[in-house]
């Protein structure tokens, strides 16, 4: 991808350079599966409980199991303290996360059961939902839930006219020119898209480029996830 003349990212990264990623599996001993995933200063942790019997009973689905995700930011994960409890934003992200993960799970094997995935953001510097999905996918694999594939999530940004990979907070607040467009995308290593959101202003040609960028970034993330899972088996 080409970099436009005179464009510099606030933290000096190359346009297709991700922040330093870290992943670790098995961080919550109580859980059936758990993981941490970070993009630079953005840290997400996730834990999986289940498959276990769905309560209340009337929510049981005899056809297939239910994936139930809850995303929540800790009160001190951002500058202005967040009041504890669910918000409209966190409820939406929870649902989006379910949709991003369910296609890869062999959930039909668990009729009347529920798989709970709890995601908490410890420290936020944008792309929290992507970090959360990456941690959640790892935690599901760690829990031994049968999965067709992995998913990897990344946020592509358009700052003025320039596309960049893995948006941080300064970039999310970009105001010059056309401003910032934020495009979180989740996909499998084979390029199947399970989650796509967009806020901002973009042409379809640019969006296609953005998706291509996401595909490359997802591969990098996948390698980090794979490595973390392999390391957990060594112990």
């Amino acid at each position, binding site marked *: 991808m080409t970099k436009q003349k005179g464009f510099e990212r606030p933290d000096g990264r190359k346009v297709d350079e991700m922040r330093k990623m870290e992943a670790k599996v098995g*961080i*919550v*001993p*109580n*859980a059936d599966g*758990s993981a941490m995933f970070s993009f630079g*200063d953005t*840290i997400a*942790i*996730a*834990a999986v*409980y289940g498959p*276990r019997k769905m309560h209340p009973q009337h929510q049981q689905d005899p056809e297939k199991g239910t994936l139930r995700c*809850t995303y929540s930011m*800790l*009160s*001190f*994960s*951002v*500058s*202005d*303290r967040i009041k*504890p*409890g*669910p918000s409209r934003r966190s409820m939406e992200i929870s649902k989006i996360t379910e949709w991003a993960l369910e296609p890869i799970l062999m959930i039909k094997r668990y009729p009347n059961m529920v798989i*709970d995935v*709890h*995601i*908490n953001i*410890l*420290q*936020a510097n944008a792309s929290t939902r992507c970090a959360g999905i990456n941690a959640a996918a790892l935690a599901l694999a760690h829990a031994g839930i049968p999965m067709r594939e992995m998913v990897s999530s990344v946020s592509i940004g358009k700052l003025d006219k320039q596309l960049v990979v893995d948006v941080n907070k300064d970039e999310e607040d970009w105001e010059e020119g056309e401003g910032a467009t934020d495009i979180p995308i989740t996909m499998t290593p084979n390029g199947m898209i399970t989650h796509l959101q967009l806020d901002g202003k973009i042409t379809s040609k640019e969006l296609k480029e953005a998706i291509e960028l996401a595909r490359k970034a997802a591969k990098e993330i996948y390698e980090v996830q794979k490595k973390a899972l392999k390391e957990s088996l060594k112990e």
Partner: protein
Amino acid sequence: METPRLTAERIREYLAQGKRFDGRKPEDFREISIEGNVSNKAEGSARVRLGKTEVIVGIKMGVAEPYPDSPNKGNLMVTAELLPLSSPRFESGPPRFPAVELGRLVDRAIRESKFIDFEKLCIKEGEKVWSVFIDIYSINDDGNLVDAAGIAAVAALKWTKMPKYDEKEGKVIYDEPTDKKIPLAKDIPICITAHKIDGTIIVDPTLEEEDVSEAKITIGATPDGVISSMQKGSPAELSIEEVHEILDLTEKIRKKVFLKIEKFLE
């Protein structure tokens, strides 16, 4: 999900011989480790591990109006959330009693020990004071969240760097932490919770032991033995002799715990 009756039976049998499943004596704490800077968006934060139990605490500060009954004093708010992530027993939703109790026990240990000098957190009497928010989150519950949270709250407060306050604009600038610390007393409050199981007094229970516990009592005190908060929990009764035993035992244990955590807090 509770501890099976057979396990409970075995815990009691062991304790009758002064033994515990993990090889500890009744008065032993598990290994303690403390880490700082869990979240760089918090003004201060700490992670405490007590065996397999893990809690994190973050401090946020803000500027608000003082309460009418304390116009020259800063505000304190302690909340606790038992994250569903940390145990199959916890569910999402509004805080239930165990979370409220956890927050309140830590609140009172900090507040009543006068650990924070609230008068120094006054900006303009009757109008503007600093508010200190202590938020507690469980990451893995293997018993005794209260004592772990108490230690984490103290560590996080000690490591807090106050944000800048722009008095003209009336705004807190979070991106510019100052070198100013929260004014704290020299002696730290430590919470120790003693449990009674079948006539034996133990401290730092695992989750299984907590399930078997008949009565508990949480004591907040400084290492030199000045008690400033106390609360008996659970419905079973304690004899005067048992309370005496708990007071003597926890005094010794508190000193040991202090020695264990002192090196982390420098």
